[in-house]
């Protein structure tokens, strides 16, 4: 089947990274991950628990609105886990095990910047701020990254500001900080990457249909690891496309591709 769009391919690729024991949650402007959570839960990972907006436990929303921190997502929840103190307790203790990040900039070790472009004191662009990135990058063991703009402005050799921790300076940096886990994969509009088990540098795992390895390498502002023959990303199945359009009938996921 060829009737799928890039947002649907990204959602399906991200969903594949979510096993059945996932207990995930989402922050602001997270339309692609939220759709991926809903897809995974409706298909291969029925045991997945999603805490919508970090508030509504295991909800059954009919649509995804303009905000992924809004009550549109909370219908049918088993609980409104409504205090910050409760949420952070479960995030710190490891009960909540999966979170997805995106940044205006990302580097080879999966660190992200959502604070400023340029210098902090005289920014060229003042971004919204790191929010929970600096926290959850340290506290949550399974980090997944996504970006709808795979280009050298987003994937940079050096971040203007490290708002959220991925693999830090690489190697055993996280372990030296006493932190568990780290980024597992990065899904973009061009490719799926993972991280080298030793160096923790970003590595090309698959390229999307119609995208060449050279294209991805050129679109990446740091030296992307390429090992051997790189396979093509598996496109979404008919069933996945159907479910995506069912769980996100108003195409909220496409907001990230404006």
């Amino acid at each position, binding site marked *: 089947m060829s009737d799928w769009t890039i947002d649907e391919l990204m959602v399906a690729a991200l969903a594949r990274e979510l096993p059945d024991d996932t207990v995930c949650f989402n922050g602001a402007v997270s*339309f692609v991950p939220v759709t991926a959570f809903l897809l995974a839960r409706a298909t291969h990972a029925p045991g997945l628990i999603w805490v919508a907006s970090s508030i509504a436990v295991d909800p059954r929303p009919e649509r995804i609105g*303009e905000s992924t921190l809004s009550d549109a997502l909370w219908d049918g929840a088993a609980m409104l886990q409504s205090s910050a103190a409760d949420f952070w307790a479960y995030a*710190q203790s490891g009960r909540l095990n999966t979170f997805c990040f995106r940044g205006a900039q990302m580097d080879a070790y999966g660190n992200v910047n959502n604070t400023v472009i340029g210098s902090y004191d005289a920014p060229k662009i*003042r971004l919204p701020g790191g929010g*929970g990135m*600096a*926290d959850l990058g340290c506290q949550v063991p399974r980090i997944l990254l996504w970006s709808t703009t795979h280009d050298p402005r987003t994937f940079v050799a050096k971040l203007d500001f490290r*708002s959220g921790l991925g693999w830090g300076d690489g190697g055993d940096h996280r372990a030296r*900080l*006493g932190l568990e886990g780290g980024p597992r994969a990065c899904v973009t509009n061009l490719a799926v990457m993972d991280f080298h088990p030793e160096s923790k540098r970003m590595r090309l795992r698959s390229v999307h249909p119609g995208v060449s390895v050279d294209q991805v390498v050129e679109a990446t502002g740091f030296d992307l690891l390429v090992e051997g023959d790189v396979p093509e990303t598996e496109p979404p199945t008919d069933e996945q496309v159907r479910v995506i359009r069912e769980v996100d009938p108003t195409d909220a996921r496409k907001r990230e591709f404006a």
Partner: protein
Amino acid sequence: MPGQGKIVALSEAAELVPDGALLAVGGLSLNCTPMSFCRELVRAGRRDLELVAVVSGMSTDWLIAAGCVRKLIMGLTSFEGFGLAPNFRRAAQAGTIEVEEYSEHTLICALQAATAGVPFMPTRAGLGTDMPALHPDRTWEMVDERSGQRFLACAALQPEIAVIHVHEADADGNARMNPKLVWFDTELVKAAKRVIVTAERIIDNAEFRAAPERTSIPGYAVDHVIEAPRGAWPTACWPEYPYDGQFYIDYQRAARDPEAFAAFFAEHVGGQLAGLDPTPR
């Protein structure tokens, strides 16, 4: 007038906040923010506020647009799916406000340290990032001598005043979220020296006594109560009304042009704009 207790009129709300105050404003992004209260601060022309807003958008943008803010202490400021907060962005880029960025959890830790009366709260959050170095006197890395574990220390941050919005309150200050996204609000309430609650409705104390398990904040922790129907607009007051998406869209459209924005702001918010340089540097 008997029975008024802690009740203050909305029109007198701004008098509760002096210029230069360290003020924490509740709410979460597009949700349940004390917007009517913020509008009063704008109209009163408050200046030099040190604003604590963990995850906010419109409230912070109004206060910055009107020149009320000297320093913003925050985790994140945006309109989410409705885009970047335009006046926040412009002022930060022009250097007309100081932005002290924390992360959500480190900011909560700083508030909790104030609540507990200890100099700092330890956390793993923020380790390995550039955030602690932005304010090394407020957040710094430490190693526990006994376990060898590294952690970030977050210095106590005690707001002089916290203001939050709830569904119902009484003259004694008892407040009920009905039900409500509590999120950061109770952390602000616990940490602050003085607490102001704006409420959709003032109800009789007997209603609280009839269902005390539903009271969210005890009256003894609240100093002032203000009746503010639709007081969260244009943010949501779930489940009573949703956020006003059209307002966010119109606001963003107006913000592209300084004259259009001045007219829009005067009509919908009131007060004077700060005359910010409209050209981001």
